[in-house]
């Protein structure tokens, strides 16, 4: 059909021009900013470190999206809420331990306990979500589980609001993590270091789990082909639950790390990180575990660096207000130029 092809080419042309001009504008903005020398080298470094810390939280969340997508080919839209429930649990656990004096007497144990409860509760929420909202709809038309996921997301959000109130709650301080630390020439706060180190540890553990255990192998088999996996004697339902559980554990960890960086919890806090983590997962190639980690880091750095680097050159006032616009534009650009992401398989899109 020559007519149709030419029209699609027109669309492609339009998209390339659009994407190309956005990229050109961004590059020119960066050039202007650097030429004007608005920020010093140290400031850039601080921004990059902050971006890596934020990005490692996104990476943990993105892994949850990618794992579920790899197996069910659905976007778990409520994943951000799983993260929020973890953060809230961490808040209550930390407050309780703080009141009991444990945070002062045995801070490391306290941190581990808080992390463990947060991860556990997030896991429970994720598993419940799968059982109640997603499992009955397996095999339904594509839009159906997505709409359910949106509904589940709202339900979880406003349940948290009803349970815990609508105010912003400030975290008790982990005095253990005050101060800053220098890794060679790079300085960062201890909190950022803890966040980055914990995220890397968790991701390495996950990688080992997926590649070296029986369950991990089963997960990979199910994501290759559910029917064949079932024929090989793998309990597909159980693997799906396991996947959700792992995603929940990671989201719980992300929840406490995020609150460590930003020091507050709120019932709506899961929304934006959730969407950005999804962007990160797409950026890295959805369904790909290493890709999700890479995508998270890239997005974190872009978000932290972007407004100052790309926009100040044009003299745009208050560029940090527009950081979310940058994150969403990244999503759109990726989908235009490389829908499969950095490392993704083409057929997934």
């Amino acid at each position: 059909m020559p007519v149709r092809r030419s029209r699609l080419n027109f669309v492609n042309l339009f998209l390339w021009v659009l994407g190309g001009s956005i990229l050109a504008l961004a590059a020119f903005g960066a050039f202007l900013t650097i030429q004007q020398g608005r920020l010093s080298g140290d400031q850039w470094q601080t921004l990059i470190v902050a971006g890596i810390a934020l990005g490692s939280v996104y990476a943990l969340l993105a892994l949850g999206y990618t794992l579920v997508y790899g197996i069910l080919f659905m976007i778990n839209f409520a994943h951000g809420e799983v993260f929020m429930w973890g953060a809230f649990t961490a808040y209550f656990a930390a407050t309780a331990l703080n009141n009991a004096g444990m945070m002062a007497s045995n801070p490391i144990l306290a941190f581990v306990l808080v992390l463990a409860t947060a991860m556990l509760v997030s896991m429970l929420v994720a598993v419940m979500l799968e059982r109640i909202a997603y499992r009955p709809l397996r095999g339904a038309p594509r839009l159906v589980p997505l709409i359910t996921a949106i509904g589940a997301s709202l339900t979880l959000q406003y349940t948290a609001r009803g349970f815990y109130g609508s105010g912003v709650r400030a975290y008790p301080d982990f005095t253990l993590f005050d101060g800053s630390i220098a890794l060679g020439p790079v300085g960062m706060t201890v909190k950022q270091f803890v966040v980055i180190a914990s995220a890397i540890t968790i991701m390495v553990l996950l990688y080992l789990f997926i590649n070296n255990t029986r369950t991990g192998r089963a997960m990979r088999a199910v994501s290759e082909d559910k029917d064949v996996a079932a024929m090989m004697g793998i309990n597909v339902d159980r693997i799906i639950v396991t996947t959700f559980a792992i995603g929940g554990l990671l989201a719980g960890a992300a929840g406490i790390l995020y609150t460590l960086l930003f020091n507050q919890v709120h019932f709506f806090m899961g929304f934006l990180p959730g969407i950005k983590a999804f962007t990160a997962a797409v950026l890295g190639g959805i369904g790909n575990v290493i890709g999700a980690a890479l995508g998270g880091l890239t997005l974190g750095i872009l978000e932290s660096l972007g407004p100052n680097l790309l926009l100040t050159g044009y003299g745009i006032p208050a560029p940090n207000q527009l950081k979310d616009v940058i994150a969403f534009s990244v999503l759109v650009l990726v989908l235009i130029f490389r829908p499969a992401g950095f490392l993704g398989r083409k057929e997934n899109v």
Partner: protein
Amino acid sequence: MDPLMRRAIITGLLGGAAVIHIGLIGMIDAFQSRDTIADVLTLGALLPILIALLIGWRSGGPMRAPHIIPTGRRAVALGALGGGTTGLVITALALFTTTIDVRWILSNASPSLAEELWYGQGAALGSVLVIVVSAAAGAAGAALHVIPGTIARALTVGGITAILVALMEPFVVAVLRNIGLRFLEGIFYAQGGLTLIGFVLVFAITAAGTYAWATRGRETKQRVAAMPPDRRRTGKLVVYFVLTAFLLVLPQIVGSRLSEVVGTVGLYILLGLGLNIVVGFAGLLDLGYVAFYAVGAYTTAVLTSAASPAFSPELPFFGALPFVIVAAMLIGLMVGTPVLRLRGDYLAIVTLGFGEIARILFLSAWAQPLVGGAQGILSVPPPIPFGRDPQSIYYPILFFCILAAVAARSLQGSRVGRAWNAMREDESVAEATGINTVTYKLLAFGLGAAFGCISGALFATKIGTVFPVSFDLLVSINALALIILGGMGNIAGVIVGALVLVGLPELLREFSEFRLLIYGMVLVTMMLLRPEGLLPSRSRRAELHEREDAEDQYEDEAGEETGQPVVTT
């Protein structure tokens, strides 16, 4: 254990979990202040009873695997067991909140919640009472399976109507006053709810009406069908005439405050009709629909308001409208083009991203010189010279709603509508049959944008000011929830959805706090139980139940169900 009893207990525990949920989010406490039957039953006390009733209905009903249908006394006993289990959980919750103080975590787990759950009777008597009442409600629910179907349906409809009429007190009272039936108010309503007599009367009348319709309805339908075509056409015309007359005098009947509510419902009907084109007809899940609403409102404000910061031609509303529509359609095409190649779920997230970008841009300091940033744009003039009171602004809204409904209806049946339909069901097949999916997708985005921007434009003139806070994601979610509740792809469904999801919460102030929670639950429940919506279009219903029908057929052939969910990719 007997599988039926096991099911009753599990269902009862689930019901208990539901009561714990609504108790801890504060719903029971908030609804305590609204009477259903004055001085007898508050809405807060009614909710757990209704849940127990539902649990009893589930527990006493037929079971699928193993296939057993409990009958007679056994069904009622099972219902009582289910309801009683729920009652036990409620008692446990009440005891928990009185003995352990966790209010620093769960702000609603207070002794006052226990008091409400115990009907204010104290621990001992209250516990017994809760269990007995829940068991009785469960038994009554199960009894609906035992009595003949027509009677059961009549009772259900009567009960639901009576509760709704009780809740809609301010609405009904205002209508009664405005049409000169004030004396009825004293009979039916006491301060804050129906009187006992009123409740019984409403219940009896609607139940009897439903029963009569169920037994005689078919005859009437047949008689209408047997009428000669010209008489049927006259009948239709009469119905349309009455409907039009009713819509024209509606603001006068309901008064000023309720006209405001009706106006808001109208705006959401417009939004719903537009989103319905994109989601319902073309099958493109757009979560950034608010962007068009915002563009409509802002463009109108900039073009008509004298207080617009940078550029203010001060056009009249109808002079500005063509520009507004063109602007929104262009934005629609801009949003539509990058997402052309994306599958459903990607599309949803990307459009959501676009919606957020729009909101952030309107809020940002960068765009402030043009659209006013957080200060917004003030003094947008009303669309018609009569002024902005809710009773006059109703008419332009009504006009555009009717226009949009007619447009949507003719689109649905046209070549374009059929092309969308084909595309929604299977894009590759549609393409193979020669449908240019690019054109039709962009057309859906553009037309949807046009409807949304008209709604936004009317919103701006109705409120008179435009602030970025009015345009968050929740508008999109709201519009989505209403078309899903009403039935995707169906115009009557949009209207019903808007009335239920926008109208009811506006009338019931206690609901507004839980509005989004209820939306979320509506989305999940509808997808699980009735994905085609309350008023489904026929093709949509067939589409969504295809799999079940196939399964049922398979089951019938195999004679029994395997109990394994069917896993398909």
